[in-house]
């Protein structure tokens, strides 16, 4: 703005003078689009194009031809084969189930944790450090302890067995029965956590353990950005805590909800790390994830399967993110920054 207005004035005065050229040059003095600013983008741009964007188009191309050598166009044939492959559908199902449990849980739990840390409890910074620390511990390092805890004869089962021996179970049974429920005692007995369909529980727990701190910080920042006077006015006007929660807090938190959800979603796709380190190459059927499928397909180098699977996942991500963005823009539209 500034840069444009000023030269206009000078130009009027010195239009015919020989120094016009110099002034033209001066006009650009505050223009940020300098050659140097453009140049600095170049290394990154070339890298992203070479390693991500251009090969992605090749991948898209591979997904619609019969093989990389003869390159005959086959339409959606590869996708049909992919979806008829049991391994892929099973892996996709497991991954989706995992993501759709882990992500909402992560959002809710970290919001609770952020609210706790946003209250007036003592030792906040200490708690913050504690909650954040799992993020900095490599998964590989704590896998041993998780194995010890969740092994068939491990600590969690020992705890469950102990719990079953206490009168507490009888009491809970009593409560459930009196509420008209049924009691199923196998629920409390030892479970082989890592080698049964309960394995998902362990993985989701591990996910929460690792990611809650990061999400909590994001929510804390958002909670702090809510204007204090707005909340106070609402309180004065007699708005109930529930109303304040929905109409003020959630509105202001909505961009953060979006961010936390997307970040957790991406991180939930990295859960393969935990699963792989806990259970190795051959996990329980319920823990066979898309990354396992990709690893196996890389081993046989089936380019059609690889590229069509990658395209399906990419499309899925784009759709999910699009939906999230739309929801967020509807819900948080009239919040002023």
């Amino acid at each position, binding site marked *: 703005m500034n840069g444009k207005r000023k030269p206009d004035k000078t130009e009027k005065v010195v239009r015919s003078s020989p120094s016009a050229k110099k002034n033209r040059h001066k006009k650009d003095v505050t223009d940020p689009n300098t050659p140097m600013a453009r140049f600095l983008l170049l290394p990154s741009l070339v890298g992203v194009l070479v390693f991500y964007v251009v090969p992605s188009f090749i991948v898209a191309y591979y997904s619609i031809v019969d093989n990389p050598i003869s390159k005959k166009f086959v339409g959606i044939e590869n996708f049909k084969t992919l979806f008829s492959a049991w391994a892929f559908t099973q892996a996709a199902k497991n991954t989706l189930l995992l993501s759709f449990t882990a992500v909402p849980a992560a959002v809710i739990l970290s919001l609770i944790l952020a609210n706790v840390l946003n209250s007036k409890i003592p030792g906040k910074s200490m708690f913050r450090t504690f909650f954040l620390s799992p993020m900095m511990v490599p998964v590989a390092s704590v896998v041993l302890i998780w194995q010890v805890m969740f092994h068939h004869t491990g600590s969690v089962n020992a705890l469950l067995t102990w719990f079953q021996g206490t009168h507490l179970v009888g009491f809970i049974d009593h409560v459930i029965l009196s509420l008209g429920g049924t009691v199923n005692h196998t629920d409390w007995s030892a479970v082989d956590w890592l080698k049964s369909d309960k394995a998902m529980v362990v993985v989701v727990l591990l996910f929460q353990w690792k990611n809650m701190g990061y999400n909590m910080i994001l929510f804390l920042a958002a909670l702090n950005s809510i204007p204090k006077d707005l909340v106070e006015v609402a309180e004065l006007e007699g708005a109930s805590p529930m109303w304040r929660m929905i109409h003020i807090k959630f509105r202001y938190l909505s961009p953060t909800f979006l961010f936390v959800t997307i970040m957790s979603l*991406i991180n939930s796709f990295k859960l393969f790390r935990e699963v792989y380190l806990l259970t190795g190459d051959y996990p329980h059927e319920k823990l066979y994830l898309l990354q396992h499928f990709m690893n196996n397909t890389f081993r046989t180098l089936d380019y059609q399967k690889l590229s069509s699977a990658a395209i399906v996942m990419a499309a899925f991500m784009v759709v999910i993110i699009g939906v999230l963005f739309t929801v967020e823009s509807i819900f948080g539209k009239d919040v002023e920054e």
Partner: protein
Amino acid sequence: MNDTFDPKPAQTADIPPQNAAPMPVRRRRKRKGTLSQRINLMLMTLFAAAAAFAFLMPTVLTITNSFMSQSEISANYGVIFSAATDGKTFISKDVNLKFIPDIVSASQYITVLFKSPDYLLKFWNAMILTVPIVVFQIVVALGASYSFARLTGRLKEIVFFIYIIVMLMPYQVTLVPNYLVSDKLGLLNTRLAVILPGVFSPFAVYLLTKAMRRIPKVYYEAAMLDGAGEFTIFTTISLPMVRSSLFSVVILIFIDYWNMVEQPLILLADETLHPLSVFLSKINTQETGLAFAVAVIYMMPSLLLFLYGEDALVEGIASSATLK
């Protein structure tokens, strides 16, 4: 309680008379709520303490258990890593999770550090993959984010949008293009196959751009009017102002790549190149004792980085709380 109450009288002084009326009402409500508030606070503190315990336990247990001797570990955890013994040592039938070893010994560390080069080699592998990725991703990203923050125009917006899309793609998607390129360039099964895609990953660009955009444009204009070149602007305005974000990005990238499993599994067929993160899962059953010590050594670099730069990390994460 005191800190909530003290500022209130001071505030009433500033409030115009017509607003003063509701104040006593509010005050009374606060006082009435004191007991329940106090209980509430106590419950929350208890909750936070319980959560903190759960959060710390795995890490602390790993550290304390690393000071056990091999025989104690096989006695306690032998069942899990079965065949850990040859029938000579005692194995308890159930797993005994212990907070504190019976006999504190540093023997595992001595073995890891001086007697079994295998682990150190894997540690070195992790270093030689992670450090170049972090350093060069930051260098490349600093330039790019500076450009993104400075440049104007539609084209830049589109390019930045592409960066975001690439950033949001999970490894399951990006590893296929990465593999293709490494294959074409003949890099497969070399460390460069992992390092190069890491260096050009848009993650750091994205976070640093957000940090750089918060610098008021006026600063740049003033500097340019005074005749400063891009380099001067970059080193005297941009860099100092994004310092905490920069540090948090360094930590985030470091931990992500220090933790990597997917890329080496696919891009490095040669297992001798694998970093410790992958190797630790394949612990030799004879060496369960060592595994704890190795695990502790492995978590040290990232934990130290964290303890050193926690405030910057928190500040950096907090400032990235939205996607746009």
